[in-house]
């Protein structure tokens, strides 16, 4: 294909696990291409490997197998066709706005006068004229990200990579910058031929992109793509817009749902008969689940649109998705067509007192998450009901990289403590069966 700027061919990325215990797969069999003249969004939850994929395409990290072709050449080392806008701006605080923008040009050996002219143009384009001599610390978050954009624009890359560019900004600033970027693109004098946007924000993806590629987790893989066939700029009040957003919410909260009816769902099968320690827990707090369920229960209607929920709770889309996913697999809620509804257990939990709530939570944990049954049985097998934490950490270590294993453990402890299943002594590093429940646990 002629208009293909970057192509990924069957990319895999594996990281060695600590202590030589095999490998952790972050990306599995990813193939995609970025075409000229399109805005492409990579949409995925945290842990779906979307940032890893972006960095492989940028040539910042090498893939374990497969290859990236950019401008007809295989990528080895930093990709010259690409400039990146970073999540936390990545500006040098000791350089002025202009000097920051000049940085990439200077590295390309462009002479001073020429360099200053191009940098000034880029600064102009993002609406920062007058701030050339300011230092980043004098700027607001939104203006800093404008500098990040100007630095990328200045070198006129073929593809502009944006790594969650608006997620470090407050809601209004993000919206403002997002629509300006969109406007710049729609006007047709954008400094790059296409944009690759990584995001976990569904609305953002649908608003900006022509094509949304959805990534699944564990390991990161392609779940499919959704074409946003609307006229630019994409109008949020358009019924078709809402339809696509709803569809994507359903897909993102249910790992089993196919994006298009005919798509196969290979990841789901792989996880069913694995060890309980292979099943990742979303990192949410029991208090968060309870709070969300209470808000849903207060709502008069039987169901609530997920997209509205995100606005109402004013939490990030990623956090909301994790909460919803947890509520679904603990059988507190169900999601159909982008609408969420409480189950009977969910209503009971939302209306519970502190003590009865803990009891419901404990029951659901033991019923729906094999992991907790497994931990409790292990502890019961010991005479004093106590086990060293390292034992469990080792089990997680087999399926997750060290940092994630630690987080899985922390989340499990958080849930287990809330449910009064077991106690954790962080100084001694041991888990102990909770005394009151030691006898009462129904084993299944």
């Amino acid at each position, binding site marked *: 294909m002629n208009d293909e700027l970057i192509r990924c061919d069957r990319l895999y990325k594996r990281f060695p696990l600590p202590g030589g215990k095999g490998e952790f797969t972050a990306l599995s069999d990813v193939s995609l291409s970025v075409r000229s003249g399109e805005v492409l969004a990579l949409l995925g939850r945290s842990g779906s490997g979307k940032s890893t994929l972006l*960095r492989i395409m*940028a*040539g*910042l990290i*090498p893939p374990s197998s497969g290859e990236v072709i950019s401008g007809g050449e295989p990528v*080895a*080392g*930093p*990709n*010259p066709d*690409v*400039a*990146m806008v*970073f*999540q*936390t*701006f*990545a*500006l*040098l*605080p*000791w*350089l*002025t706005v*202009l*000097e920051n923008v000049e*940085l*990439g040009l*200077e*590295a*390309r*050996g462009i002479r*001073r006068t020429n360099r*200053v002219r191009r940098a000034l143009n880029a600064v102009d384009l993002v609406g920062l004229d007058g701030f*050339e*001599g300011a*230092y*980043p*610390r*004098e700027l607001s978050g939104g203006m*800093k990200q404008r500098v990040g954009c100007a*630095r990328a624009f200045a*070198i006129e890359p073929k593809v502009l990579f944006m790594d969650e560019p608006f997620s470090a900004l407050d809601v209004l600033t993000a919206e403002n910058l997002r629509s300006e970027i969109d406007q710049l693109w729609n006007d047709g004098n954008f400094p790059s031929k296409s944009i690759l946007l990584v995001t976990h924000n569904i609305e953002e993806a649908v608003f900006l992109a022509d094509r949304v590629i959805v990534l699944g987790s564990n390991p990161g893989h392609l779940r499919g793509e959704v074409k946003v066939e609307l006229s630019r700029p994409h109008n949020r009040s358009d019924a078709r817009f809402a339809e696509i957003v709803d569809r994507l919410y359903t897909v993102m909260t249910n790992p089993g749902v196919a994006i298009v009816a005919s798509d196969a769902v290979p990841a789901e099968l792989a996880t069913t008969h694995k060890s309980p320690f292979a099943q990742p827990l979303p990192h949410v707090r029991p208090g968060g689940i309870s709070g969300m369920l209470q808000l849903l229960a207060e709502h008069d209607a039987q169901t609530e649109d997920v997209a509205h929920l995100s606005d109402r709770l004013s939490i990030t889309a990623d956090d909301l998705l994790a909460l919803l996913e947890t509520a679904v697999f603990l059988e507190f809620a169900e999601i159909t067509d982008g609408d969420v509804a409480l189950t009977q257990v969910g209503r009971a939990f939302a209306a519970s007192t502190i003590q009865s709530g803990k009891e419901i939570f404990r029951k659901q944990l033991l019923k729906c998450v094999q992991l907790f049954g497994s931990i409790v049985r292990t502890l019961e097998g010991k005479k004093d009901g106590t086990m060293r934490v390292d034992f469990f950490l080792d089990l997680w270590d087999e399926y997750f990289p060290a940092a994630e294993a630690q987080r899985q453990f922390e989340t499990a402890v958080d849930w287990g403590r809330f449910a009064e299943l077991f106690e954790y002594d962080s*100084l001694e590093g041991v888990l102990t069966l909770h005394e009151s429940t030691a006898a009462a646990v129904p084993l299944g």
Partner: protein
Amino acid sequence: MRSASAARAPRSFAFGLPDVAVTLGVLTLLAIVAKVGAGAFAPFTAKITPHVDLDPRNLPYYAARSTLRMFVALVWSTLFTLVYGYFAARSKRGERILIPLLDILQSVPVLGYLSVIITAFIALFRGSLLGLEFAAIFAIFTSQAWNMTFSFYQSLKSVPHELQEAAALYRLSGWQRFVQLDVPFATIGLVWNAMVSYGGGWFFLAASEAITVLNHNYTLPGVGSYVAAAVAAQDMRALGWAIFTIAVVIVLVDQLFWRPVVAWADRFRFEQSAAAEAPRSWVFDVIRASNVPALASRAWAPAADSVGRLLSAVTEARLASRAPIAERKRGDRLFNAAAIGVVVVLSAAALHFIFTTVGFGEAIKVFGLGLATLARVAVLVAFATIVWTPIGVAIGFNPRLARALQPVVQFLSSFPANFIFPFATLAFIRLGLPINFGAILLMALGSQWYILFNAIAGAQSIPTDLREMCDDCDLRGWRRWRRLIGPGIFASLVTGAITASGGAWNASIVSEVVSWGNTTLTATGLGTYITEATTGGDWPRIVLGVSMMSVFVVVVNRIVWRPLYGYAQKRFTQ
């Protein structure tokens, strides 16, 4: 640094008062350096050692000589830091050798190998005072460089990941990365570390200007040797003048050099928001108000540009082509084997040398002496902690007092304690205090301030609302110490104790043997052993003593301080 930007043009070109001040200042400085520096090239033969005149009117000249030495050492330390730290942080294999090596170098007592250095440098610069000069500078260098290098290395290791990615993706050359990312990022840590190390350097300067090696007295003109001469002549008045001079010099260097540098370095603060309280300096304000720096940087810009381009071309960003993993692993294994081999051979050679020349019995005896000095260090740290912690906490809890006393404490910690030694020695002789105990006091003179310093910092870090909560719950006296203050300052106290004990080991070499006129007091300990071996030029015993002390320092660090530090981090930090 070329960050003086084109956009920040000077307000006017009129030649104002600040410009006159800055120009005059620069010219005066150049004249002093030229005049004082010339003395360093004076011819010198081992027979005629330079004479130190006790007339106080010579003190400004001597002080200038000493200060020049300190600054030359600082320049070398900085260069060493940039090169060594860079390779340790950026080369995986280099890191595995350079960092443990630095750790060892840091625990070898500087004053222990001073004799080795002096002999080597005298041999190198025959017939010129330059050899002695370099030996003294080298001694100061070794007291400054390791700290600074560690700080630089750690800064480089903590450059945020996104900035590194941006540097790679925008293809910054090695040189560009170094001057625009690495060095600026490390500057603030480096400046603070250099300032503290510089303060510590006065102690070693004083000890290295007048020293007896291989039964020969070597003297360099300077405040340190002035003190030594005053002690030999039992001249109390001269000693008083020397102490006054060094105090003035410390204050001047602080005002004219360190404060402006700290104020300047503030622009490299990494936090992207404005600081609550930026460091200020009147000298820096004057320099900034003048046009001289802007004019100089404009004149320099084209040259800097071409130099930068040239160095960038040499260190162009490589398109990564890594060796296959298997090959790299084999290379790593070979590298490790070679490194271990070198270590084994060197230790075997050292052991062989010691045992064939002095014998096993001597080693046991020296170990016993090490225990004696260890006991002194332990008593010192324990005592200083008990005495200074309550005072430090009281100061730290009172912000006004803390602000007022901070410069005083800073001054005390950089004041070379060995200038006070003669007075203490005299007191010991008059009062009949045995030097075996007196040595503890002498060692404490220099090292106790670290404990005070850290107790203040620890107390300041306890949040006000926690203290208000204690008032509210009526938690007082011992209970308050046990529940709030103790845990709150524990981590800082450990840091202070580590620094204090390190300083005390070094100080033992000059504290266990002291003299006043013809009376010499000698304590039993490893410090005395090393000093005597040095004076007598007894090589095997020098090697044995210095290695024994290094082993003591390393072992105590590993089995006491590191676990304590780890515990403090785990248990008492939020």
